[in-house]
């Protein structure tokens, strides 16, 4: 479970996130939408413990990101925005390293490694250096590393970036499957700036603009509202964003 309560973040006095609150429950997939620079990545970085909030509180699986950062990292699988990986490592050595850092050893490590290799389709590049892998593979390696310790919470920053259309579809199914696996439900929060992608995969949509959360609504309700008002989903969300911009400007 992710719990973000009244979180603010400023860089050198300039506000990047302003009083954002939301929750993501186990088994729920939440899409985080917003233009570049809106504050999506900043919030995800605060959830991953990389950044500290200026004010407010973030908890993951009940652990405060500021007090129990290591415990949070044990319960979270995180794919960072640029998915920077250690280029000179082989894919297998990288997955083993990440697994061992999560205290996986022996048969358990072998089992989890085999699972992520199969699910992320990495068998063909296992012996390759990461630097020799294509962008699509690199993205899948990042996702595999985020999943190797079977975390309760998945935080993915632009996870489909660099994937081809077929891989994007497969990825959506994959995320849905792992989020709702009986007995292993995961809270999934992922960011994107493509509305159709967010609507296709998530149970709930969060829209952020200029550091403010301007929309927090279930995908089903959002689609129903768009149909009722006779507008497209895009124009409905855009209306919210424009209204927020005007509010900030005034």
């Amino acid at each position, binding site marked *: 479970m992710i719990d973000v309560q009244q979180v603010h973040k400023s860089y050198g006095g300039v506000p990047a996130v302003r009083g954002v609150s939301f929750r993501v429950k186990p088994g729920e997939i939440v899409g985080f939408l917003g233009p570049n620079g809106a504050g999506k990545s900043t919030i995800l*970085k605060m959830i*991953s*413990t*990389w*950044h*500290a909030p200026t004010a407010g509180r973030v908890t993951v699986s009940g652990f405060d990101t500021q007090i129990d950062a*290591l*415990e949070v*990292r*044990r319960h*979270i699988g*995180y794919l*960072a925005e*640029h998915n*920077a*990986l*250690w*280029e*000179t*490592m082989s894919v297998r*050595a990288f997955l083993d*390293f*990440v697994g*061992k*850092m*999560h*205290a996986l050893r022996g048969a358990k490590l072998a089992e989890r490694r085999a699972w992520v290799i199969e699910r992320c389709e990495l068998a063909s590049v296992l012996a390759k250096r990461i630097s020799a892998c294509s962008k699509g593979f690199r993205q899948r390696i990042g996702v595999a*590393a985020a999943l190797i310790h079977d975390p309760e919470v998945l935080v993915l920053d632009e996870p489909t970036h660099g994937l081809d259309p077929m891989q994007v579809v497969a990825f959506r199914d994959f995320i849905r499957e792992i989020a709702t696996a009986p007995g292993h439900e995961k809270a999934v929060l992922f960011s994107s700036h493509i509305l159709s992608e967010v609507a296709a995969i998530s149970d709930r949509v969060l829209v952020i603009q200029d550091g403010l959360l301007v929309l927090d609504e279930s995908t089903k309700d959002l689609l129903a509202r768009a149909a009722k008002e006779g507008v497209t989903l895009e124009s409905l969300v855009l209306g919210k964003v424009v209204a927020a911009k005007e509010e900030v400007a005034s």
Partner: protein
Amino acid sequence: MSARLRLSLGRSFLIARRELIAAFDSAIAPVAIIVSLLFVTTAFMNGFFLAGRVEMASFFARLPLFLALLVPALTMRLFAEEKKTRTIELLFSLPLSTGEAVLGKFLASLGLVVLFLMGTLTIPALLAWLGDPDGGAIVSGYLGLLCLSAELCALGLFFSALARDQIVAFVAAAVTGSALILFGDPRVKSALDGLSDNPHAAPGTRLAEWLSPAGRLFEFDRGVVSLGSLFFFASFTVFFLWAAGFVLDRERE
């Protein structure tokens, strides 16, 4: 050892192992070590055959300044590159404390320097073959170099944590490390003492006593291993490691 400490050290060793593999993957570390070994051994042999004395005093006197240049070449990439390539975010998304990461990288860099120092053991081996050198002074001299290496590794790591660019980290660490050693040189000491009008101030002497490892290393070279000297190197090493962790934590706030 408690289970918690064992796990913590285990994570640091994992980082150290990964760093050592990465160091040998890139050409920089092996080339720097091999070239340094060739240079240091050749320089010593030239002096040795001219002087004809079975002792390592000249080696122990010259090596500190050489280490002040070699060690930053081995430490410069440790955090600066992680920041530049943004893998530092990946590193700290793992259940690893800043202290564990700093310790792991410190152990890796010290491991590389130890490898270099082991390469120079051909010199005492040759001396033992040719004559009867003072074994105790050689062992304590090497212990002094090990202590200095630890301090320089910690210093290099601090500048690597501070800088985003490897070259900046190298230059800052090399200049600071060399300056600390040169503060102990009698000529530098008297020149700095001469800068003050107050004869009791003696800034050069004070700097040499408080900051420079040169006087301590001279003791080691003569076969004297004092607790004070060990404490001196340990405290500087711990301070720079703490400062590296502090800088990394501050950057993320």
